[in-house]
C-alpha cells in the first residue's frame, strides 16, 4: 500500500480512502514506539530534511523522531542556522538541498502555499508541516487518529473547534479531514477571528461557544496568539478567556464522554483552564504520542518500498 502521490500538501486534496490508509498504517506503527527497541528498518537509507522557517519544537521533533524510528536519516534546518538569513531565495535553498539527494523535505513556512511551490520545483517528496494559515495536514491526521482511537468511529460525531479560526491552519485541515470522514464540524470564535466564507469549507459557524460545545463529542481548542490583542482581534486576554476559554462549566453542555484536543502549545488559563487540560477528558498528550505514529505512516506511505516498485 502507498499513497498515489508524491507529496502531502493539504487535507483538502485527500480522498476519504487516502485518509483511512494513513490512519490504519499509523495504527500498525504505533506499537513500535512502545517497544524497547523503538526502531524498524523500513526506511533505511532514506534521507529526510526538516526545513523549518518558523520556530517549532513539537512538530519538528515529532517528524525527526518519526523518521529515525523508521531508520531514515533526518537532518534539521531552521532559519537561524541556515543560509536563509543570507538572503537566499526559497527556490535556491530548496534546489541546493535537493542536490544532496534527500528523499523527502518536510517544510514549515509562514507563507501559505510555500509547500505547494516547493513541490512544483522538487522531485523528492514534500510534506507540509504547516504553511501560514493554510493547512497543517499531519496535525489533522493525528487529531483524527486520536479521536478514532477513543471513539472507534468518526462518522456522525460532532466536533467543535474553538478559537482563532482566521489564523489557524489546524482548524482548516481539521474541518476538511473530519467532514470528509462524515463528522459534523462547528467552528466558534469572536467575529474578528471568523474568516469570511469559512462555511464554504464544509463546517457550521457560530460565535457562541456554548452553542458549538452543545452535544459535542470532541472539543478542539486552538492556541490564541497573545499578540493578536495588539492587533485588536480581541480586547484583553481576560475577556477572551471569560468568553471563549474552556472551563468545566462551559464543557458541561457537551456529551458526557466528550474528549478535549489542543494542538499545543497550550496557554494555561487563557484558552483552556488547567482543570480541563489536565482533566480526564483531555487527550492532549495522546495527540503528541500519536503524532509520531502518524508521521511514521506518512514517511512510509510516501517513501516506502511499495513506492519504489511503481
Amino acid at each position, binding site marked *: 500500500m502507498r499513497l498515489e502521490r508524491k507529496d502531502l500538501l493539504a487535507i*483538502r486534496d485527500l480522498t476519504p480512502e487516502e485518509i483511512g490508509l494513513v490512519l490504519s498504517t499509523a495504527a500498525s506503527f504505533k506499537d513500535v514506539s512502545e517497544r524497547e527497541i523503538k526502531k524498524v528498518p523500513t526506511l533505511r537509507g532514506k534521507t529526510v530534511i526538516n526545513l523549518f522557517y518558523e520556530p517549532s519544537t513539537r512538530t519538528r521533533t515529532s517528524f525527526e523522531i518519526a523518521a529515525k524510528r523508521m531508520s531514515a536519516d533526518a537532518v534539521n534546518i531552521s532559519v537561524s542556522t541556515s543560509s536563509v538569513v543570507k538572503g537566499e*531565495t*526559497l*527556490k535556491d535553498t530548496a534546489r541546493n538541498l535537493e542536490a544532496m539527494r534527500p528523499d523527502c523535505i518536510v517544510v514549515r*513556512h*509562514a*507563507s*501559505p*502555499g*510555500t509547500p*505547494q*511551490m516547493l513541490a512544483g520545483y522538487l522531485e523528492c517528496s514534500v510534506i507540509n508541516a504547516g*504553511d*501560514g*494559515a*493554510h*493547512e497543517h495536514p499531519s496535525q489533522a491526521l493525528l487529531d483524527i487518529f486520536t479521536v478514532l482511537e477513543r471513539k472507534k468511529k468518526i462518522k456522525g460525531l460532532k466536533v467543535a473547534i474553538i478559537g482563532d479560526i*482566521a489564523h489557524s*491552519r489546524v482548524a*482548516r485541515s481539521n474541518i476538511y479531514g473530519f467532514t470528509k470522514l462524515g463528522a459534523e464540524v462547528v467552528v466558534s470564535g469572536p467575529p474578528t477571528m471568523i*474568516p*469570511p*466564507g*469559512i462555511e*464554504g*469549507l464544509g463546517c457550521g459557524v457560530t460565535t457562541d461557544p456554548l452553542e458549538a460545545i452543545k452535544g459535542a463529542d470532541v472539543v478542539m481548542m486552538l492556541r490564541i496568539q497573545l499578540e493578536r490583542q495588539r492587533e485588536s482581534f480581541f480586547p484583553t486576554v481576560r475577556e477572551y478567556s471569560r468568553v471563549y476559554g474552556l472551563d468545566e462549566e462551559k464543557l458541561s453542555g457537551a456529551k458526557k464522554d466528550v474528549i478535549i484536543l489542543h494542538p499545543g502549545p497550550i496557554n494555561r488559563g487563557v484558552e483552556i483552564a488547567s482543570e480541563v487540560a489536565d482533566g480526564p477528558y483531555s487527550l492532549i498528550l495522546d495527540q503528541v504520542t500519536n503524532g509520531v505514529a502518524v508521521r511514521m505512516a506518512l514517511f512510509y506511505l510516501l517513501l516506502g518500498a511499495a513506492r519504489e516498485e511503481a
Partner: protein
Amino acid sequence: MKRLVIKGGRVLDPAAGLDGAYNIYVMGGRIASVKPTDKDTTELVPGVPDLEVIDASGLLVVPGLVDIHTHLREPGYEYKETIKTGTRAAAAGGFTTVLCMANTDPVNDNQSVTRYILKKAEAEGSARVLPVGALSFGLQGERLTEMAELKEAGCVALSDDGMPVVRSSFMRRALEYSLLFSLPVITHAEDPVLSGPGAMNEGAVSTMLGLTGVPNAAEDSMVARDIMLAELTGARLHVAHVSTRGAVGLIRAAKERGVKVTAEATPHHLTLTDEAVSGYETNFKMNPPLRSREDVEALRQGLRDGTIDSIATDHAPQSIIEKDVEFSKAANGVVGLETAFSVIYGLVEEGVMTLERAIEAMTVKPSEAMGLDTGTLRVGSSADITIIDLKKSWTVRPENFCSKSRNTPYAGKELKARVVKTIYAGEVVYGAD
C-alpha cells in the same frame, strides 16, 4: 516628404464617428486625409519614392491605442523594464501613447527626472511616452511637488500611484493646487491601514488559501474620500485601476451629480477573479487584487455604461527575483501591454460590449481623461494607427514578449485578435514587413 497609405481596411474611429471602409493618407507624420474606399479616385503611381502602401483588406484600422497607466521602470529598475523595451511592448500591443507612472528610482518628482525620461523616450522609444509626475516628493504623501515645473518639463498628469495618499489633508491640498495647471490627479485609492499585509482579495478564496485578504472597503472608502475632495475642490480626479463594485457605484453617483471624475479598469480586473489565485501562482498577484465575480460583473457594467471611461493596463513589469518566491513575499503587478487588446476583444466576442465601445475606451476616452489630443484619426492628428487582424488567434508565450518581464496572468492562453502593425507618427514601429 514621406507618405503612407493604408488601403481597404475597416476604419473604426469613435472620436471621428467613422466606421467603414476608408483609405487613410499620411503625410509628414500626420493624417492628411481619410477617404471612403469606394469613392477614392486617388491614383497611386507605383514606384514613387517615399511612398509606402499598406493593404489592410480584411483588417481593422483604429487610432493608435492609448494607455494612461503603465510602469516603464526607468530610471532605477532597468532589470524589470526600460523605456526602450516597455515602448516596444506598447507598440507590439498596438499602443502608440503611454503614460508612465512616477514610482521610479529616483521618483519622477522633479523636472530632471521628467526630462531624462523624455530624452530616453525620444532616443530609444517606439511610442509616445508621457510622464506622470509625482503628487508628493518621494511619494511620501507629505510635501507637494513643484507642479509648475513638472508640467513645463512635460508631465501630463500627477499621481503617487503605487503609494496610496493616506493623509486626507494632503490630498485636499494637492487637488486644490492642481487647479493652477488643470492637470488631472490620478488616485491609487486604497486605505493601506485597512489593507494591511493583505496579499489577495478578502473572501471565501482567501479563507480557503489561508492568505490575508484585502477587503473591498479598503478601496471603496478611499474612492469615496477622493470623490468628496474632488467635489470640495473642483479639481479633476481620475481613479486608477477600479476593482470593486462599490467603487463603480460611487463613481457613477459622483458623475451623476457633476463631479469631475473619470475612471479606468484593467483588462485583468475585467476578466479574472480571485479564484485564479487558488494555485498560489504569483502572476495573479497585483494591487488592487483580483476580486469576486460580482465585482467583475459590476466593472463590466460600468465599462458598458461609461461609468468606467477607459481601459488601462497598469503594466507593471516584475522580474523573477520578485515573482518566483513565496506568495506573501512576491511583488504585486502584471504586465499587460502586449495582451490588453486581445483580452478586451475577448469581452467583445462574449457580448460584454461593442467593438466600438472597446476602441473608444482604449483611444479617445483615455485621451480626454488626460487632456490629450491623441486617440483619433481626424485630419491633422498625429498619424498613430493600429492595424488589427480580428480573426487571428494566438497563444500567449511570455518568452516571446518584447517586454523585459514575463509576469503575465495569461501565459498559455489562446486569445483572439492580433495586432499586426502599429504606426506611430507615420512610422511603422511594429510589424514592419
